[in-house]
């Protein structure tokens, strides 16, 4: 099943009198349960594409279907709600709240959930998530008391707290040493493999990108190898259940 489908996405920025086209007709399909790396040099439109995919920004033209729903025309508030419910974000610089415990950091997105979660249940869910990322003994630690890898794992738990369909990781290992990077990437693979979570890794590092099943290269606002759902199948190293159901029809 297609989780994401982009069709002829254009994005043009207006800098004073000059129009700067950044995305020039991007079309792309990401299947549910895929782990995709989005690669490109700086200035290639990679970040812009990620912002559009993450519903932080809207395209100037083109269509974007998320879970079969056209969302390129949503209002700001509707997009905020969609981000809250469907999309998790992991950032390069972790972006944890300062002087706030790991638990409260993970709980933060729940306070913007349209359907309220009772305090108890919210707490239980967050504790479970922190245990899942291996921080069961760090619940009350503030972000400044955690190492980089631990902070990123708190961020991952936070991204997962609303059970999103899609996880965005924007250079998730950019501020980590290589050993911790590998740990974090393994965790992504694990989440993808065990729970069928769709993950999009945005990176310029080929080493990182190779942890994904499929790599999408973007250059000068155009995808070089975008469409192929088939491209995903040319790299069959990770076979998992979601893929299996997809292939069947």
């Amino acid at each position, binding site marked *: 099943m297609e989780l994401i489908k982009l069709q002829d996405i254009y994005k043009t920025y207006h800098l004073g009198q000059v129009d700067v086209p950044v995305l020039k007709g991007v079309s792309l399909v990401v299947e549910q349960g895929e782990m995709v790396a989005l690669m490109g040099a700086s200035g290639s439109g990679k970040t812009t594409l990620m*912002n559009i995919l*993450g519903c*932080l*920004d809207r395209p100037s033209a083109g269509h974007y279907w998320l879970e079969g729903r056209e969302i390129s025309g949503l209002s*700001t*508030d509707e997009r*905020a*709600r969609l*981000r*809250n*419910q469907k999309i998790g*974000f992991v*950032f390069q610089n972790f*972006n944890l*709240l*300062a*002087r*706030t415990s790991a638990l*409260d950091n993970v709980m*933060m*997105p729940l*306070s*913007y*959930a349209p*359907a*309220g979660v*009772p*305090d108890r249940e919210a707490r239980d869910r967050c504790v479970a998530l922190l245990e899942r990322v291996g921080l069961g003994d760090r619940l009350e630690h503030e972000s400044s008391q955690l190492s980089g890898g631990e902070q990123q794992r708190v961020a991952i738990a*936070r991204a997962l707290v*609303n059970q999103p369909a899609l996880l965005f990781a924007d250079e998730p290992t950019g501020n980590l040493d290589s050993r911790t990077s590998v740990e974090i990437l393994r965790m992504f693979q694990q989440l993808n493999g065990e729970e069928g979570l769709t993950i999009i890794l945005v990176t310029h590092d080929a080493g990182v990108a190779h942890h994904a099943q499929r790599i999408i290269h973007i250059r000068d606002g155009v995808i070089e190898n975008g469409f192929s759902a088939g491209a995903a199948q040319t790299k069959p190293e990770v076979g998992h259940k979601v893929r299996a159901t997809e292939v069947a029809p």
Partner: protein
Amino acid sequence: MSWWHTQFHSRTLRTAFHALGRNKMRSGLTTLGIIIGVGAVIAMMEIGNGSSNAIQKSIASMGADNLIVFPGTAASGGVTFGAGTATTLTPEDAEAIGQECPAARAVATIVRARAQVVYGNRNWVPLFIYGASPSFLDVRNWNDLAEGGMFTEQDVRNAAKVCVLGQTLVRELFQGTSPLGQEVRVRNVAFKVIGVLSAKGANMMGMDQDDILLAPWTTIKRRVSGSTLGNENQSAQNAASASGTQATVNTLSDIYPGQSALYPVPSAVQAADTPLPVRFENIDQLLVAAQDPRETQLALRQITQVLHERHRIRPGESDDFNIRDMTEMTRALAATTGLMTNLLLCVALISLVVGGVGIMNIMLVSVTERTREIGLRMAVGARARDILRQFLVEAVVLCLLGGALGIAIGRGSSLLLRATLHWPTELSVGAILAAVIVSLSVGMIFGYYPAWKASRLDPIEALRYE
């Protein structure tokens, strides 16, 4: 849905407290303006209220509900003799007022004299020698005598030679011994002391109200001042001269031997000679107490009406009496303290506004500083209005906390002033309510702009903000 709302609001509140707690020092300094402003408002209001009440209380003890009726001005051949010189007030006027004015609680007849009081080898000229009716104490709220009792209606009828003394006079004449049963002499008339007034202190003009001798007004009138119709007028009095007066006084009872009526009855010839009723006995002033200090105006109207009828004054004619009330003084004084309170309140309110500007300032800094946090919150699904609410709640919480602290400080300082300097402060619930409302609105008003600014941030820009 309502469950979720309370849930949501409690979370917003918790988030706000958390955000403020992350920077306690700054939050404290930010809200200092509000604390001082509210504290000043509360303290000012309590002190202002207290002093204004104290002033009103002391004015009440001076007789705020009293009305004083003076006779009009005597004039002869273009020469006027000043207020109270006409002989137009009679004891019957007092009786009529007592009976016909429902707003009057008590009426006292007063005849004044100024003379030396002698006891043994000591003497003193008291400020007041009042010939009065027994109701005088009622009118002046002076019923608690220190010793003995007041003279009676019967004493007035008999022109009995009894008197009641004020504390100052007792001190000057008796020097510690009890004056009860002793005799003092006023212009050679011996008065038996039957009572001693309690201390009342000075009145508003600084006159010692305890420097007083009270006697039945008939006694003072006939035996001491000896003013009959013949010598009442100033010009007539001049002609009579001092020595002549003295002689008249002590022989007054001889003029009307065997007279049992209280006042001399005018003869047929006298009645025929004068078209207006002749007042054989006039008094110097009437003291009327209203039923309620707030009803003095009503009492004043009723007295005016009664006197108009009794004195046959037609509409358009000028009154032959004038009435003074203390409420004018009460009001003037209350207005003075009210003015002071309002002035101080204005200053305090200005400091509140300054405090609000401080809050806005720091909230703006805080928004800039927390740009990335705002971006993150937006990225994980906070809508613009969520961000707006969060910062607004933070500002309001800050102001309310400051307000609460300010109330505590204001109350505390007013209590301290009361305890140390004995200032008469008084709890003002209105001021506390106003302080809460004002700090709430200061938070709303001055918190809105920063919160609005925060809510307008673009999440992409905000996340990338360094």
